[in-house]
């Protein structure tokens, strides 16, 4: 008996955001259906994977991770070059050094690092502040100015600091990461406020925060899925690509961080940690996540191979 495949037809499309310039520029979004349901609608752009670069040497990354970047961890430009070699679609520069508890680097220092990284690679750049809202306003503003015309993705704008960061994006031609604490209502409201300032919706990506496998992944998944269904169903203020900081969440779990000596029953640490990162990213890609910021090059490779299979 013939099986009749039921197809959902949505009234709206996810906006398509371009990041970067020239031949290595990337596109994300544009979906007319839920992820990978290629029989039902279009998914013109596959999810992207970025590798993370810091402006300071990370103190708490486990050895199985730092060993992949031996010799370049104190040089962000060289580190970014290494990530490009590993096949990252984008580089995500995290300006952790600007945090008052770290180096408290000045906006000018941060901008200089950002420029050096941008000059060192051909792939597009994501630049994220340290998360201290008032500091991010100064740092991201200066970074936006120095990288004018490079069409970077910058963030993260939050309800208390979005105005200046949004204005910097508008003036210097970048796209914005609008961040909310796992809250769809705030996500929508922030997007309304940002678009009212004049930043078009195809220059905004939503960062709903994520949880890793074992640490709230299901909750993050359900919020992300609700954002995506609402966006496809006509809510233009939720119809943006979704940004996921996978590495940041995964590499602080004990499953990724504990050595084989500490927990022999969990098996090889590198295999376990990479799997943790890949499973988290692959799960959220099913909920609509489309820019995955990861840390381990093997995770990146496995995730992209998985996506390639799903896109066939």
């Amino acid at each position, binding site marked *: 008996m013939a099986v009749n495949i039921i197809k959902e037809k949505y009234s709206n499309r996810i906006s398509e955001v371009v990041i970067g310039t020239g031949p290595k520029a990337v596109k994300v979004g544009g979906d007319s259906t839920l992820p990978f349901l290629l029989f039902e609608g279009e998914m013109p752009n596959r999810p992207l994977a970025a590798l993370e670069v810091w402006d300071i040497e990370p103190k708490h990354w486990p050895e199985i991770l730092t060993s992949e970047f031996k010799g370049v961890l104190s040089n962000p430009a060289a580190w970014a070059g290494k990530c490009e070699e590993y096949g990252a679609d984008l580089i995500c520069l995290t300006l952790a050094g600007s945090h008052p508890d770290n180096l408290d680097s000045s906006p000018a220092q941060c901008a200089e690092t950002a420029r050096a990284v941008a000059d060192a690679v051909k792939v597009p750049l994501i630049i994220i502040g340290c998360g201290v809202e008032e500091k991010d306003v100064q740092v991201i503003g200066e970074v936006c100015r120095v990288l004018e015309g490079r069409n970077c993705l910058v963030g993260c704008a939050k309800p208390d600091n979005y105005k200046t960061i949004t204005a910097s994006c508008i003036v210097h031609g970048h796209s914005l990461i609008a961040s909310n604490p796992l809250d769809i*209502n705030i996500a*929508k*409201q922030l997007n*309304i406020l940002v678009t009212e300032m004049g930043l078009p919706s195809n220059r905004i990506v939503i960062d709903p925060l994520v949880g890793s496998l074992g640490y709230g992944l299901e909750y993050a998944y359900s919020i992300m899925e*609700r954002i995506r269904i609402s966006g496809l169903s006509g809510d233009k203020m939720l119809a943006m690509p979704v940004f996921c900081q996978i590495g940041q969440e995964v590499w602080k779990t004990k499953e990724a961080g504990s050595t084989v000596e500490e927990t022999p029953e969990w098996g090889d640490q590198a295999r376990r940690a990479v799997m943790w990162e890949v499973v988290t990213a692959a799960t959220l890609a099913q909920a609509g996540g489309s820019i995955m910021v990861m840390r381990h090059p093997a995770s990146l490779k496995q995730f992209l191979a998985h996506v390639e299979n799903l896109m066939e």
Partner: protein
Amino acid sequence: MILIGERINGMFGDVREAILSRDPEPVRRWAMRQYQRRADYLDISTGPSLEAGDQPGAMEWLVRTAQDTVDLPCCLDSTNPEAILAGLEAHRGKALINSTTADQWKIDLFLPMALKYGAALIGLAMNEKGVPKSAGDRAALAMEIIVNADACGFPLEDLYLDPLDLPCNVGQEHCPEVIEAIRWIKTLADPPPRTALGLSNVSQRCADRQLLNRTFLVMCMAAGLDAAIINLDDDELLKAVAASNVLLNREIYCDSFVMTFKNRD
């Protein structure tokens, strides 16, 4: 919620004057105003005072004038099939015919007409005997229309069933029956048929009309109403629709929920 602006109707003095003198300005003004206030359709009615022979020409002129002003589909509102036909001929895009009753001769007239022009159709839960009193009888008449639509291959998503509200100062007992009828009609087919209502009728010649209108609309929305012909100039009514969309989980809440609803894009 599909909002149909009621204002381009010959029952209103300024529109009637406009029709008689073929002065496009009032029609353009109301088309634009209702468009800005978030209309999904413009209801177009020549009004009953026009001679039947003059209605088709007036309908055609109203449709063209409205659609030359704004890019919105029209809800062609007439009891005169000739006028509906003239409106369909002039209309661009997918029109909504308002309406057929559950009388077989009318169904046989309007369903093929809607099919031929690719239009949607409002079916009234009444027949030559009038408007039934109970929810069950309204649903039974709605079912007649659904069965006929299904039999001739009319897409059910293009069929709107109107359980008909009466002024609450003369037919108060009808109000809860209408709400109940909406619930019933939504169970008559799968996927559920759509429902529509001409809202302002519920408060004809009553005091506090706007209060009655918006309270009734919210009650009907909660029962499953999909579309209503309304006064879009009533700001509090639009706010109540915005709030109902949120409370019925049809729209994701955000602090600017009223503003985002009222803004066209």
